[in-house]
Structures are given as structure tokens and as C-alpha cells.
């Protein structure tokens, strides 16, 4: 039949066109990152682009990367999470309090010797617990995610102050600090953790039913529901997973800093969300990749790094950062424009 032949021809045309578009589309984020790196290289005469810079960058962004991965997954499921910074801060305080040297008189539990794994486990548990609460509120309480997590953000901030009595928790054990500060040859541990997390989450999102379910829920929750996917349960899962990742983020933060206080983590939510978005995660849900989030984190990272390296006045840094976020996402959005 004629129709079919033409349809086939049509399709071929579409495939090639689509493929190019797709490839280019995927690369918008990578292109931005590369452009920034090249620009930095030119502006510093190549000096900024050494191995040690890369290490610095990785280490600096690792903690944020976990938060961005968490919230990125949540945004793919049409959610948002404002509680990140405070939850990370709370986790950092709790884990730090369990990792203080036992002979430190100012410790929260002076004289008590906890095993090194305890702060890690408790910290991650606290993060996950907050994730579960967020998930319950959003999935089963039908609260808009913005508001549910605004509420838990406030609660986490309060708990942090109550727990620490507004003081700094320092003097952490060296074994504990080693978790984030150590390195394997030239490879900082933090970098290894991030790469491992990216790999595992990438497999989850592309190779398992769980990932397909997340994408479907983000793309069209009704369609997911009638396809037999338990939307509420999956929402709970993704918020819990987010909380779990914030937990890791908080533990690594306290370990890296060797301390924690109520200001720790403040404002991280905006950085994490910005990173995920710059990395191509769409706020209308269902679109984005783990690799994209990773790229997004490093795009913002290179901006901060570059401005730090070049000593840009901090007042102007805010200006530049705001503009770059807008421009980066603008180019990324151009390909989604027709869906608006």
C-alpha cells in the first residue's frame, strides 16, 4: 500500500533527524561545560587546568553531587525538595556528634566511645527518615512538594538547633575524617564515592524497572497508574532515596570538614536544584539523565572554581552565577520549547 511506503520513508527521515537532534540535544549540557572549561583555560592561560585543579573540583563538588543526584531523581518524578540543606545540616550535626574524640570535654557525649560506623549509619538513617517523611506527605498526604518540603526544611532546621544547642560540634576522630579526606593514590575517596553513586543510579534509571517507573511517573502519572505502577509507593521511594543520598552527603560533609554546626548545609538546596536543572533535568518531569546531573554539578562547580581561581569579587560572583544559570538552562530549554 502506498500509505505504508510513504510512512516508512517518513520514518526513516524522522529517525535520522531525530537522532541528530537527540544527540545535539543531549550535548547541550556537555557543550556548556566544555565551553566553560575552555573559557577558563583561555582566561588563565591554561594555568587553571591542572590535575590538582580537577581534584580540587571533584572534592569540592562531591558533597553537592550527592544532594543534586537526590533532588534530580525527585524532580524527574515531578517533585521538588527544599529540605535538602537543612537535612544535610542535621545529618552532619548528628553524625559529627557521634564521631567526636571521646577525650574531648566539649563533646556532646563526652567519654563515650562509639564505633566509627555508627555516625555513618545513624547519619544516613536520619537523612532517609526525612526523605520518608517528605515522601509520605507528598504521596499520601497529597501536599504540593514545594510546601511539604518547606515544612520539613523548617523542622530539620529546628531539630538541628535543638540537638546542637546552636554550638559547633568539632574535634572529630581522625578515622572518621579519613572517610572523606583520604585518597587512593591521586584519586580522592570522595571522587570514588561520587563515581560509584553515579554508576549505580545510572544502572537503576536505565536498566531496571524501577527507573522506567520513575520516568513514567514523571512523564504522566495517570498513564503510569493505569499501567499498573503504584505511583504513591514509587513517590515515597524516590523521596526516601533522595533522603538517603542527602544522608550520605551530610556524613561526607561532616567528615570532610571535621566539624558541623547549625549553619552547615544552609542553602544547599538551591545549588543542588540549580545543578540538576543545568544538567538537563526538566521541571515538568520525566526528562533527564544521571549523567546530566553529574555534568550539571560540574558546570556550576567550574563556574565557582573559575571565579575563585581568578579572584572575582564575591559581589560580582553572585551576578555572574545567576546569569550563567539562566543562560545555560535557556539553551537547554530551546529544545523543549515546542512542548511549552
Amino acid at each position, binding site marked *: 500500500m502506498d500509505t505504508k511506503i510513504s510512512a516508512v520513508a517518513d520514518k526513516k527521515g524522522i529517525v535520522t533527524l531525530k537522532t541528530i537532534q537527540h544527540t545535539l540535544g543531549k550535548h547541550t549540557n556537555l557543550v556548556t561545560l566544555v565551553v566553560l572549561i575552555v573559557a577558563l583555560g583561555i582566561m588563565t592561560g591554561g*594555568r587553571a587546568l591542572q590535575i590538582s585543579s580537577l581534584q*580540587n573540583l571533584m572534592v*569540592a563538588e562531591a558533597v553537592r553531587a550527592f544532594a543534586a543526584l537526590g533532588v534530580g531523581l525527585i524532580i524527574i518524578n515531578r517533585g521538588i525538595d527544599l529540605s535538602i540543606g537543612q537535612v544535610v545540616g542535621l545529618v552532619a550535626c548528628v553524625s559529627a556528634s557521634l564521631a567526636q574524640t571521646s577525650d574531648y570535654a566539649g563533646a556532646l557525649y563526652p567519654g563515650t566511645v562509639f564505633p566509627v560506623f555508627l555516625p555513618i549509619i545513624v547519619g544516613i538513617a536520619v537523612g532517609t527518615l526525612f526523605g520518608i517523611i517528605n515522601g509520605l506527605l507528598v504521596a499520601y498526604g497529597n501536599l504540593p512538594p514545594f510546601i511539604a518540603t518547606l515544612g520539613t526544611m523548617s523542622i530539620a532546621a529546628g531539630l538541628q538547633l535543638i540537638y546542637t544547642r546552636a554550638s559547633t560540634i*568539632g574535634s572529630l576522630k581522625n578515622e572518621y575524617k579519613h572517610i572523606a579526606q583520604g585518597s587512593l593514590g591521586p584519586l580522592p575517596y570522595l571522587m570514588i564515592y561520587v563515581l560509584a553513586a553515579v554508576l549505580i543510579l545510572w544502572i537503576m534509571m536505565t536498566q531496571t524497572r524501577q527507573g522506567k517507573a520513575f520516568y513514567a511517573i514523571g512523564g504522566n502519572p495517570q498513564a503510569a497508574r493505569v499501567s499498573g505502577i503504584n505511583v504513591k509507593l514509587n513517590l515515597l521511594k524516590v523521596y526516601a532515596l533522595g533522603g538517603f543520598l542527602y544522608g550520605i552527603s551530610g556524613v561526607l560533609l561532616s567528615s570532610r570538614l*571535621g*566539624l558541623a554546626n547549625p549553619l552547615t548545609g544552609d*542553602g544547599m538546596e538551591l545549588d543542588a536544584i540549580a545543578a540538576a536543572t543545568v544538567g538537563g533535568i526538566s521541571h515538568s518531569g520525566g526528562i533527564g539523565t544521571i549523567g546530566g546531573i553529574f555534568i550539571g554539578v560540574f558546570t556550576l562547580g567550574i563556574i565557582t572554581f573559575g571565579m575563585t581561581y581568578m579572584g572575582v569579587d*564575591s559581589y560580582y560572583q553572585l551576578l555572574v552565577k545567576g546569569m550563567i544559570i539562566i543562560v545555560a538552562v535557556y539553551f537547554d530549554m530551546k529544545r523543549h520549547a515546542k512542548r511549552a
Partner: protein
Amino acid sequence: QQEAGSEKVTIGALIRNTDEQFVADYAENLKKLAAERGVDLKLLDSRSDQAMQLDQLNVLLTQGVKHFVIVPNVTEATEDMAKKIDAVGGGAAFSNIQPSVEALKVSPNFYLASSPESVAGQIQAQILDEYFQAHPEKMANGDPNAIDAIFLYGQLGHPAQVFRSEAAVKGLKDAGYTVNIVAEDTANWKPDEAQAKMDTWLAAYSGKFDVVIANNDGMALGAVESLLTNKYTDDPSDPTKDVDGDGTVLRVPVIGVDATGVAVKSMSEKKLFATVLQDAVGQSTTAFELAYMMATEGSATGKDAWGISPLTEVTGESPATDAAIVGQCYLVPFAAVTMDNYKEFMQ
């Protein structure tokens, strides 16, 4: 890698947060000094984020910077920073937030060039002690030994909030008062929040407090504005008259920290009662000179900076409590800004 071919002295400055008045003034003075001495100053602002300060330190270290002026975010982080700097054979002078004893013990090239935050609280207490000595009738409950105070805190957990508040209470207690906290809350350093809190407290505690103590001038001014608009003044019909002659037109004294231009101007109108000058210029000059001496002469040990000599014996205040490092401590004096001397601080 040291920058080849450049004879210029390089100094790194890691600054807590230039949103804060004190820190902003500190940074401005550093820039001025660097320009005068032809120093390449790499000044970075960590926006209250200790992780970022650590990242910035790493970046500067890879750029070959060895000598630093640091306004840290937290005392507890100073030891790690000192170790990193020491690893490249450098040194640093810490200001405003004290370094820990351990940080100064890392090497003799680490210095305290500061007036610790707690001194601000102590001076607030002194000023109030003088005030109540002179005006015992201003004690709300008639007990000349009990002060009924309202506290306005900065962002909770912020080192300046913690140390200033603790020291003010301790100072009053040491002066022999019982301190009765009528109301206390954070206004996150913000004047508008302070104003709203004060409005509410006036509804709840009118006539039941005899002083408002704020962790900074911004909040103090917010409280002043609230007291004025609520006519909590000596003469409700004319808010410019200091009827009882206690130095303020308000019924109670309000006291801040920072001695900002606006605060001093307010004092000139007898609204704000007093404030405390954290000497940003003094601290930053001292710290800068220490770093400059290290960079140019290899060491600053035992030398004077900005005319200040290192301590010779231990004091009660950390970190100058350890004889081993007492010679690395340069204490920059604070100044009380009161009705007697505020004119010296006018811009």
C-alpha cells in the same frame, strides 16, 4: 607552582562573609593596604560556608599562595586549615573568630590577630553596668541587682551570635547582677525581623524590661525603630526629648555591636544608646602586616604588627591560654562607643 618571573608578594585572604558589615570593612581595608604595598591580594569570600572556605584554600594553595589572612567561619576548622598551609611551608594570621590552640600549635607561623567576639559582649556588659550604676531608677522591677533584659540574637549558631551573647550575660553576672531574660529570640541579624519581634514584645512585656541587647547594630536599630513607632519614649508626644537625661530618648537603653555609620548617627540623635566597635581596620592591618612580614622576611615571630606586640603571658581567653603559643597572639583592642565618645566614630 610559584608564579615565575613575578617578584610580587602574594597574600591570600579567606574571608567569612562580606555580607557582614565587619567583614566587609575588614576586606576593604585589606584591599587598601595591598594596593599601598603593591601586594597581589587574592581575596575570597566564603559566604558563611566552611566547605567553600576549604575549597578556596585548596585553590589558592594550588596556585602557590603560601601566606594568608583568614577570617574563619568556625574555630574548629582552623586546625585543618593551618595543617594544609603548613604542608606547603606557609603561615597565616587569623582574625575575628579565634583559631584553636591546636591551630596555633601547628607551627610558629600561625597567629591570632583579633579581638575575639566575646570581648564585644563583655564591653556591652560594662556599658550597661555603668548605665545602671548611674540610673538605678531605670531598673524595671525595683531590684537594683536584677537586670530584666531582652535579647536579640543573630543567626543561631553563628559564632558571633554565640560568643557575643554568652559574654554579655557572663559580663553582667560578673558585675554582680542577676540576669533575668524577659524575652529572647533570633532576628537573624535582620533589622526588619528585629522590629517585628520588638513590636510583639512591646505588646507582651511593656514596662517589664529595662534593656534591649542586640548581637549587632542592624537588629538594635530595628528595635529602636519599633520603640519609637510604639512611642516607648521618655516623652510619648515628642520622641526627640531625653526627659530623664539618661542619654537616650527611649524609655530603655538599646545596645548593639559594630559601630556602623548608621548606628553612630542614631546615637547622635540619642536613639541608640551605645554600641561596640570591633576594630575592623585594626584587626585587618595587624593580620595583613603579619602575613606581609612572613612573606617578605620569612617570619614574623616576636615582631610588632600595627604597633601591637605579641602577648607575653597567658590570659583567660582562648587561645591565649596556652603558654606555648602565647607569643603568637596579637590582641587588637575593642572600643566602647558611648554617648561620651561617639563623635570620634562619626563618618
